[in-house]
């Protein structure tokens, strides 16, 4: 694994070159945020600003979510007349981010030829909330990575606290099977070993081993804190529909309140729309202000899609998404016979 600061230096050089040579009009990366344990997305247009780019264990945001809106087609002929030409965009991608980009290209939301993809194999990113929970009543005023890849936080009384990386990695990173970007033009840093293949599967199997009522009770308990803010949907790179089915009022498919029936349908419907498309980036769970395990349902659906149709989202741009295709011998276990 290449050290973060080495990658950071090369990333800055790369961005500076791409912008300076006008190979890209815009470069998306991460920069230091105002609070520790986090980064904030950075939209660069000037080569000299490349020094602001950061690469560290806090680069969790999936930048792919910002790409579709940069390439949105004009709404009508009038808009088309005044719309600026489509930019060429450079973007830093971890393994999961790259998979999102592949899926977006498959769905014609992004033009491959207008993207310059800088891929960095990712050893896993820190979940700020997890770290803060470990710190308890202490507050980190600064945080960085030490030589062993652990997180060194400086708390309010000046003392340093070391947090083991494994203790504070995001849950989705602990399940990561594809840390190396599946698509990129420029590679920075060495490849990273995928995690053990069955973490997600074991979680799903454990839940399935419980009786139906216990599963429902678990689902209810997991989702009961949902405040219907839609942050999970807004943060998801694959949720790019201008008019979401779940916002529609004519007809109204699901109410906007926190009645559990509505909460359940929102999550079931959204998860279903992710089947075969979710690239397990965890942006949804990260965005959730209530700390819900938003990935509870898609985790299972992704496994289903893999088992039934041999498909893992975001691996190959020319692969056909499973719900856009069918096979004559598709299983029909769902049938009722009279």
């Amino acid at each position: 694994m290449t050290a973060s600061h080495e990658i950071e230096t090369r990333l800055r050089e790369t961005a500076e070159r791409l912008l300076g040579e006008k190979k890209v009009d815009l470069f998306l990366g991460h920069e230091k945020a105002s609070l520790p344990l986090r980064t904030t997305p950075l939209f660069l247009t000037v080569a000299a600003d490349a020094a602001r780019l950061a690469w560290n264990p806090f680069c969790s945001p999936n930048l792919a979510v910002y790409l579709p809106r940069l390439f949105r087609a004009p709404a009508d002929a009038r808009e088309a007349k005044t719309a600026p030409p489509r930019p060429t965009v450079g973007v830093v991608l971890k393994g999961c981010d790259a998979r999102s980009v592949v899926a977006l290209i498959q769905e014609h939301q992004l033009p491959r030829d207008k993207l310059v993809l800088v891929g960095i194999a990712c050893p896993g990113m820190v979940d700020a909330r997890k770290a803060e929970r470990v710190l308890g009543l202490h507050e980190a005023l600064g945080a960085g990575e030490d030589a062993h890849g652990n997180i060194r936080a400086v708390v309010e009384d000046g003392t340093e606290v070391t947090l083991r990386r494994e203790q504070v990695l995001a849950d989705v990173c602990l399940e990561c099977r594809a840390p190396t970007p599946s698509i990129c033009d420029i590679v920075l840093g060495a490849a990273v070993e995928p995690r053990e293949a069955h973490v997600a599967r074991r979680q799903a199997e454990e839940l399935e081993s419980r009786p139906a009522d216990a599963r429902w009770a678990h689902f209810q308990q997991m989702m009961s804190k949902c405040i219907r803010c839609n942050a999970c949907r807004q943060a998801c790179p694959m949720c790019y529909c201008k008019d979401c089915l779940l916002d529609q009022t004519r007809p109204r498919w699901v109410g906007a309140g926190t009645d559990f029936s509505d909460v359940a349908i929102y999550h079931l419907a959204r998860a279903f729309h992710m089947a075969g498309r979710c690239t397990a980036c965890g942006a949804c769970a990260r965005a959730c202000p209530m700390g819900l395990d938003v990935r509870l349902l898609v985790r299972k659906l992704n496994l289903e899609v893999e088992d039934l149709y041999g498909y893992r989202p975001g691996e190959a741009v020319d692969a056909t998404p499973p719900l856009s295709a069918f096979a004559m011998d598709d299983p029909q276990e769902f049938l009722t016979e009279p």
Partner: protein
Amino acid sequence: MTEKRIPQTDLDRLLARLRQRAAVYAPAEDGTGEVVLAALSGKESVTLEYRNFRLSPKALVLPQNQTLLCFKDGQAEEPRLPEGETILFGVRPCDARALLALDQVFLNGNPHDPYYARLRSGATVITLACARPMSSCFCTSVGGGPGDGTGADVLAVALAGDLLLRAETSKGEALLASLADLLSDATPAAVKEAQEQVRAAEDPMTPVKVDGSAERLRQAYDSPLWEAASRKCLGCGTCSFLCPTCHCFDITDEVRGGAGRRVRTWDCCAYPLFTLHASGHNPRPTPKERWRQRIMHKFRYAVENFDRLFCVGCGRCIRHCPASLDLRTVLKEVGA
């Protein structure tokens, strides 16, 4: 209004007494390691070891969803408004001040909101002063403070082993009078210690310049900084839903057959659909207009309309934004 005192070991007794007359909400662990403002049933383990709750107490006076009326076969029926009192113990000074901002909108506005009024008038607020603000807190910059009693009926300060209580309103006085047998007078030394604790808590907070924000924002309306600042915004709604002063709502009818109900739910100006007109036109079509509006509403329009900032410096939006947007940065850029 003399300060009263109760040992912290007697807190459970105090809360149990309050529960005899009202639904009591107090800080308690929720089983996942988080401290929330929980409805007490008597089984919770109440704690004073917390910074602030993730969800603000506004949910108790302006619920996420609220039935305004029901209808069936052409007849409308107002739902019976909840009766009874609630006592909110452990609200932080910033959140208590925020209730006054909500009052401005729902009580002093036109129309007067009876749903909000019922919940609000039935609530007694016992504020717990902050000893340790977070780096995302900036209440002192927006007119508040870690020991501010504005918006509270009773202001409490936790000292080592003791809880000091001071009535801030007549409602608070009546409450403390009803607990007289549990309370004793606080010593002048304890009062002084409480004042020092508050002062010490004010020190670490980094000031944010908001004086004159209304005028500066008016002048900066067309500034390119809005585009730059808003590019990162996902329109996720986290900031509004967690914000103690945000109050925008949507009203929808949920109908099935000939019956249904009219429901009010929280809404967020950062949502793309927030200002979508029936014609299809949207006056705030991109994140830039929406982010600008959010800052303007809190630091300019509220000042122009109500002579009050609609931000209490709680820092939740900064701490929970998935893109780590920080409105203090924007205010600084506008002030520069």
